[in-house]
């Protein structure tokens, strides 16, 4: 994936005795779209602010392009930030907002003019130079905030929940737009969000965080299909997480029924957590299923039906395009490669992490 551009080494940070980040290590590759994903209070925004220079870590180092920038002021860093609520300068018009960073750097007027034009075109807001920020919609203000950041040609663009205040439709449009911008600019994006769909749609690399720890990092597919622990499985998409027993390699006992799986190396007769995505469960006639149950709930979701199935003393969440009415007796079948086996949390730390789910 290219070389490391930013490396966080053993970063710790606490506020008033409350630990926000604990010995965080993270490498960010050049030209990647990296998303820090997690619930509020997980430390993702603090991580971003430490990279941006708005917070100093209590311990640890921030390495940027091979240099230690831990103590460098934000105005000296080769990166720019798009803030959560846009943070436009309300006393300046759009052109002045975009020009701010360039004027500070004493760029010639003609250069600034060209840059403003280019940036406004890039965010599809040509001709907005003389407007004031207050007269723009939330989505437009967000684009201006992006334009204001990118004219400075940063190596990295930091985005702190930039779509949080927008409505759903606009948010989806902006996701594609951000992805396009990233391709066009060819720079690194570090994106912070609590929205798993946003993360899956846009990222090359997702870092799932909770309570100041990195839970898992990897490509969107890997995070979704092979969650490493119950927190990740639960946070990313819907899932059925069931405490089970690994009988031996490639065989797991879930709620008393034995399912074939593809995982190995968990030992024999060991407790494990099993993750099964609701769309991976196939409802079949009772005699054909591995586990027998009854449909107890039904919701039409547009693309699919969402069904609750009571089987083996557990309420399974099932997504299917085929309808099974409430009260129908059904069999549950899962393909071996759709069963994801995870270690049961061992240490107290890990326990604490999954308890908050």
């Amino acid at each position, binding site marked *: 994936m290219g070389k490391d551009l930013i490396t966080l080494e053993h970063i710790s940070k606490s506020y008033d005795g409350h630990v926000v980040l604990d010995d965080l290590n993270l490498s960010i590759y050049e030209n990647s779209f990296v998303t820090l994903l997690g619930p509020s209070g997980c430390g993702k925004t603090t991580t971003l602010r430490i990279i*941006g*220079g*708005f917070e100093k870590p209590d311990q640890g180092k921030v390495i940027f392009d091979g240099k230690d920038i831990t103590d460098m*002021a*934000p*105005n000296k860093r080769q990166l*720019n930030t798009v803030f959560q609520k846009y943070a436009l300068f309300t*006393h300046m018009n759009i052109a002045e907002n975009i020009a*701010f*960073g360039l004027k500070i750097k004493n760029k010639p007027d003609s250069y600034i003019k060209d840059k403003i034009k280019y940036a406004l075109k890039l965010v599809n807001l040509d001709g907005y130079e003389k407007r004031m920020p207050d007269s723009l919609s939330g989505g437009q203000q967000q684009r201006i905030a992006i334009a204001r950041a990118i004219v400075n040609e940063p190596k990295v663009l930091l985005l702190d929940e930039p779509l949080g205040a927008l409505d759903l439709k606009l948010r989806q449009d902006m996701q594609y737009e951000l992805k396009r911008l990233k391709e066009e600019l060819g720079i690194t994006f570090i994106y912070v969000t609590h929205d798993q769909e946003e993360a899956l749609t846009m990222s090359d690399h997702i870092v799932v965080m909770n309570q100041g720890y990195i839970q898992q990092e990897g490509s969107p597919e890997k995070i979704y299909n092979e969650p490493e622990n119950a927190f990740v499985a639960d946070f990313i998409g819907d899932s059925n997480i069931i405490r089970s027993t690994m009988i031996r390699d490639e065989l797991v006992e879930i709620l008393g029924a034995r399912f074939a799986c593809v995982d190995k190396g968990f030992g024999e007769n060991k407790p494990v957590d099993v993750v099964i995505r609701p769309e991976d469960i196939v409802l079949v006639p009772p005699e054909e299923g591995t586990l027998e149950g009854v449909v107890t709930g039904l919701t039409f979701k547009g693309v699919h039906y969402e069904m609750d199935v009571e089987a083996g003393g557990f309420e399974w969440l099932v997504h299917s395009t085929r309808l099974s009415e409430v009260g129908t007796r059904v069999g549950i079948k899962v393909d071996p490669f759709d069963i994801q086996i995870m270690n049961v949390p061992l240490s107290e730390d890990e326990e604490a992490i999954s308890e908050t789910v």
Partner: protein
Amino acid sequence: MKLFKNNKTAPLLASPYIAWALIFILVPLAMVIYYGVTNASGSFTFDNIAMITEPGYLKALGRSVLLAFISTLVCFILAYPLGMILSSMKLARNTYLVTLFILPMWMNFLLRTLTWMTLLEGKGVINTVLEFMHLPPIHIINTSGAIVLGMVYNFLPFMILPIYNSLSRIDDNIINAARDLGADSLQTFLRITLPLSVPGIISGITMVFIPALTTFAISTMLGGSKILLIGNIIEQQFTQVYDWHLGSGLSIVLMIFILINMIIERLADTEGGVLG
């Protein structure tokens, strides 16, 4: 707010205020204007207003403007850094401090000014202490300096509060954004913080300059009877000379003066907003 947008109930709800404004603002104002443009026999004249050109009155007006200007400036210089310190503090602690600044306002204004009189007097508290320490006494009572001191002391909270308000309303991320875009602390202050706090500065200036310009209590107590401000002269017309016509005429001049000042400030506000 929805409730008050209802067109039918709005006039009804506003009626107490309208009545209040009518009785306590418009009627007295109309009376001042009536007295100002008439003479003792009741006929129309501009003489009362023209009296401001009398050297004695003109000098008092000039002195009032100068002392009000100095007081406002001193208040601003003291209040802005204080406002910045307050707005940068955590909420729990700054509420406590803001209360400390407002606390003197709970005491009567005349009483507080009177206290300064006993402090500054020739044989007052300060000089007694100085004498005890074998230091030369200071002669500040009955000077313009004492008046400025009294004005600054009394009106400082009116400058701090609006400035503090406008500063604390600036989102931290706006400051962070300026820093992020390459501005150092000074550039951030000059280009972002200062222009965004202009509305607070303007209302602070208005709230200090106007009472400072019109005061007569402070100058009476701390300036003795030697230093007359325009406020003292107007007061004398009403309470000693009983020439209501002249008093009102001079009041009109003062009002026009304040009006011009407010227009200039308003213009500065909108320009400051655009130019940044």
